[in-house]
C-alpha cells in the first residue's frame, strides 16, 4: 500500500550494487557523449557576430535614446561599416520637421515602366547587390484593368508596350499602417512627417509586418547585405539607408536622409518622364498639393482603410 501512497517517494527497492555502478557508468558515458554532441551541434554559432559589442546587444529602443546616445551609436555603426565593408560613411539622424507631412503622387499616364526608379533606389539605399533588391516593384498592367492578378512584375522586353500601362509600387506610408499595428516590439512606427520607419537595431525579425502589409512594401534581410566598398552610398541615416544588419526587416522611408534635408527622393530624380511628384502636403503652394486638388487621384486598395500617403492618377 505504501507504494501507492508514495509512488514518487524514495521507498523504492534498493538496487544491486553492481547494477547501480553499471547504470552510473552508462549514464556518465551518455551525458559525456550528449554534451560533446551538443557542443558540436551549436558550433556554427561561433561564427555568428550579431553585434560587435555588448553595447550593441544592450542598445535600447530608438525612442528611449538621448540625442547624445544616438550620436554615439551612429559613430559605432560608422566604425562597424568601416570594419566590415571597408567604406567611410557618415550616419546622420535627421529629425522630422514640425508641420511637414510628406506625400507622393505618380502619374500613371506617363510612366513607361523603365524601372529607373527601382534601380536608383537600389543604389541610393545600399541594397544587397547579388539579389538586386529594391523598395520599388513595377507592375506591367493590362490596359483597361486595375486587377493586379493580371499584372506582371517580371516583364523583360522593351517598354512601354502597346496595350499596357505601368504601376510602380513602394511603401504607401499609410496613416493607418497595418505593419505598425502588428509589430510586437514597436520596432516600426509612424513619424510626425508621415514616414513609417524601422529601427533596424530593435527589430527581432519575426516578419509579422511583412505578412500584414497589403502592398508588399517590406523586405527582410535573409542574409548580411553584400556591397562592394566603392558602391556604398556614404550619405546615410540611422532610420534610413545605412547598411541593414542581417535578420531584420527594412522598407522605403521616402529617402528621409535626403527629403528631411530638403532634397527629393532618389526614385523621383531618376524618373526620365517626370511621372513622380513629391512634397509637403501641408504646404498649400506645393506641387503635390496641386496634384491632389486638381487631378482625380486614387490610392491602392482603398477598401482596406490603410489611408496611404501615396497617390496615383491618370492624365489622359
Amino acid at each position, binding site marked *: 500500500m505504501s507504494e501507492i501512497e508514495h509512488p514518487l517517494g524514495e521507498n523504492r527497492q534498493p538496487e544491486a550494487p553492481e547494477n547501480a555502478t553499471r547504470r552510473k557508468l552508462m549514464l556518465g558515458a551518455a551525458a559525456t557523449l550528449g554534451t560533446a554532441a551538443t557542443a558540436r551541434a551549436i558550433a556554427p554559432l561561433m561564427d555568428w557576430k550579431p553585434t560587435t559589442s555588448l553595447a550593441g546587444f544592450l542598445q535600447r529602443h530608438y525612442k528611449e535614446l538621448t540625442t547624445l546616445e544616438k550620436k554615439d551609436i551612429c559613430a559605432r555603426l560608422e566604425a562597424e561599416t568601416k570594419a566590415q565593408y571597408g567604406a567611410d560613411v557618415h550616419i546622420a539622424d535627421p529629425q522630422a520637421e514640425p508641420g511637414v507631412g510628406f506625400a507622393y503622387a505618380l502619374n500613371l499616364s506617363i510612366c513607361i515602366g523603365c524601372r529607373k526608379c527601382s534601380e536608383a533606389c537600389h543604389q541610393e539605399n545600399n541594397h544587397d547587390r547579388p539579389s538586386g533588391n529594391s523598395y520599388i516593384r513595377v507592375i506591367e498592367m493590362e490596359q483597361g484593368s486595375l486587377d493586379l492578378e493580371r499584372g506582371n512584375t517580371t516583364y523583360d522586353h522593351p517598354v512601354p508596350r502597346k496595350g499596357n500601362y505601368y504601376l510602380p509600387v513602394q511603401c504607401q506610408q499609410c496613416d493607418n499602417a497595418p505593419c505598425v499595428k502588428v*509589430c510586437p516590439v514597436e*520596432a516600426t512606427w509612424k513619424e510626425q512627417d508621415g514616414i513609417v520607419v524601422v529601427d533596424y537595431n*530593435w*527589430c527581432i525579425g519575426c516578419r509579422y509586418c511583412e505578412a500584414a502589409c497589403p502592398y508588399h512594401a*517590406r523586405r527582410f534581410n535573409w542574409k548580411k547585405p553584400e556591397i562592394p566598398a566603392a558602391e556604398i552610398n556614404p550619405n546615410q541615416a540611422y532610420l534610413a539607408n545605412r547598411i541593414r544588419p542581417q535578420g531584420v526587416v527594412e522598407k522605403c522611408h521616402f529617402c528621409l536622409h535626403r527629403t528631411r534635408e530638403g532634397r527629393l527622393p532618389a526614385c523621383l530624380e531618376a524618373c526620365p518622364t517626370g511621372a513622380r511628384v513629391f512634397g509637403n502636403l501641408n504646404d498649400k503652394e506645393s506641387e503635390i498639393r496641386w496634384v491632389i486638388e486638381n487631378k482625380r487621384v486614387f490610392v491602392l486598395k482603398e477598401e482596406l482603410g490603410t489611408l496611404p500617403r501615396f497617390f496615383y492618377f491618370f492624365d489622359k
Partner: protein
Amino acid sequence: MSTKNSHLHSYPRFLWHAVRLATAGSLGFYAWMTVLTAVALVGLHAWASQTASGMVLTHMTDQVSWGLYIANFTFAVGLAAGAVMMVIPAYLYHDEDMHDLTIIGELLAVAAISVCLMFVVADLGRPDRFWHMIPLIGRFHWPISMLTWDVLVLNGYLLLNLHICGYLLYMRFLGRRANPKWYVPFVFLSIGWAISIHTVTAFLYSGLGGRPFWNSAILAPRFIVSAFVSGPAFIVAILFALQRFAGLPVGNGPIKTLTRIMQVTLPIDLFMVGSEVFTEFYTGGAHVSAAKYLYFGLHGKSALVPWIWTAIACNVVALFLLMRGDVYQRPKRLLTAAGLAFVGLWIEKGMGLIIPGFVPSTLHELVEYRPSLVEWQIAAGVWAAGLLILSAALKIALPVLQGTLAAHSAERHPGGSSAS
C-alpha cells in the same frame, strides 16, 4: 516557518528524484530517448547554422515570408489547446476514469507549448533580441499587436500547466493529499485559457485585411474544432503506448470518451472547411486565387496541390473509420483513424493554411515555396525535442498514474484483483 524550511529542503530532492525517474528505464526507453536526442541535435545544428548564416538557408522569400516553422507553430498551438479535451470531461462532466489520467493532457500541453515556443524562436531573424519582447524589459506593443497577446496566452498556458502538474507530482512525492484550492481553480482557468491560445493564434492571421485567404471570421472556430480532433487523436495514441509499453491499465472509458469527441469534432471541422471552400469558389473573383492555388494550382504553379489532397484523403478516410459505434474497442482501426486525422490536420492547418496566405502575394506575384533541408531538419528537431520533453514528463508521472489507477481499481472492485 518550519514548513517553508522543509520545502526548501524537499523541493530540490523532488526535482532530483524527477531527474532520476526520467533517466532510468528499460533498454527500449533508452533507445527511444537516444533517437529523439539525435534528431533534436540535428535540428539544433541546423538552427545554429541558420542563425549564423542567416535565414537565406530557408526557402522563404519576401513573397512567402512565413513557411514550415509558422505552419508547425500553428498546428502545435492546436495540439496544446486540444490537450484540454481530457480536462473538460474530467472536471466539467465529472468523468472519473478520465480524472485519473488528466495529468497526461496537462503534460502534453506543456510539451506542445514548448514546441510552439521553439518554432517561434526558429522563425526569428534575430533570436539574440528575444528580450525585446519581454514585457517591462523590452518594448511590448500590447494590446495593439496580436502577437503580444499570443506571447501572453502561450506563456500563461505553459505556466498554468506547469503549476498544475508540478504541484500534483510534488504532493505525491511528499506523500500528501493535494489541496484542491491550490490546483482546482487553476484547472478551471486552464480550460478557458486553452480556448484563448488557439483563438488568439487564429486572430494573428484573420485580422490581416491584406490577406483575403486568412481574413475570415470562421478561422478561429475552425482552429478550435480542429484542435479538438488533433489533441484527442494524439492522446489516444499516448494512452495506447502507455498501455503497451508501460503496462498502464488505461481501460476503455477514457478512450471511448476521446473517440466520441473526435466523432463529433472531425465532421464539424470538415464542414467548416467545406463552407470556406464554397464561399471562396462560388464568389469567385480575386478572393478565390489563393484557394484555387491551394486546391488546383494557379497558372501552372501547383506545389501545394499534393499536400492538400493528401490532407483531404487522410481526413475523409479517418472520418469513415471513426463512424462506427464500437470503434473505440478496435485499437487498430482507432489508431489508424487517429493517425490519419493527425496528419491530415497537420497539413490542413499547417502548410495548407499558412502558405496560401502568401500565394499569390499582395501584388499578385506567384512565388512558390518548398521548405529547404535546413527547415525540415529544424522542424524535425523541434518535434523530437517536444517528444523528448513529453516522454520524460510521462516517465516522471508514471508511478503516480499507476498508483492512482491501482487504488481506484481496488476501491471499485473490492476483493477483486487490482489489475483491470
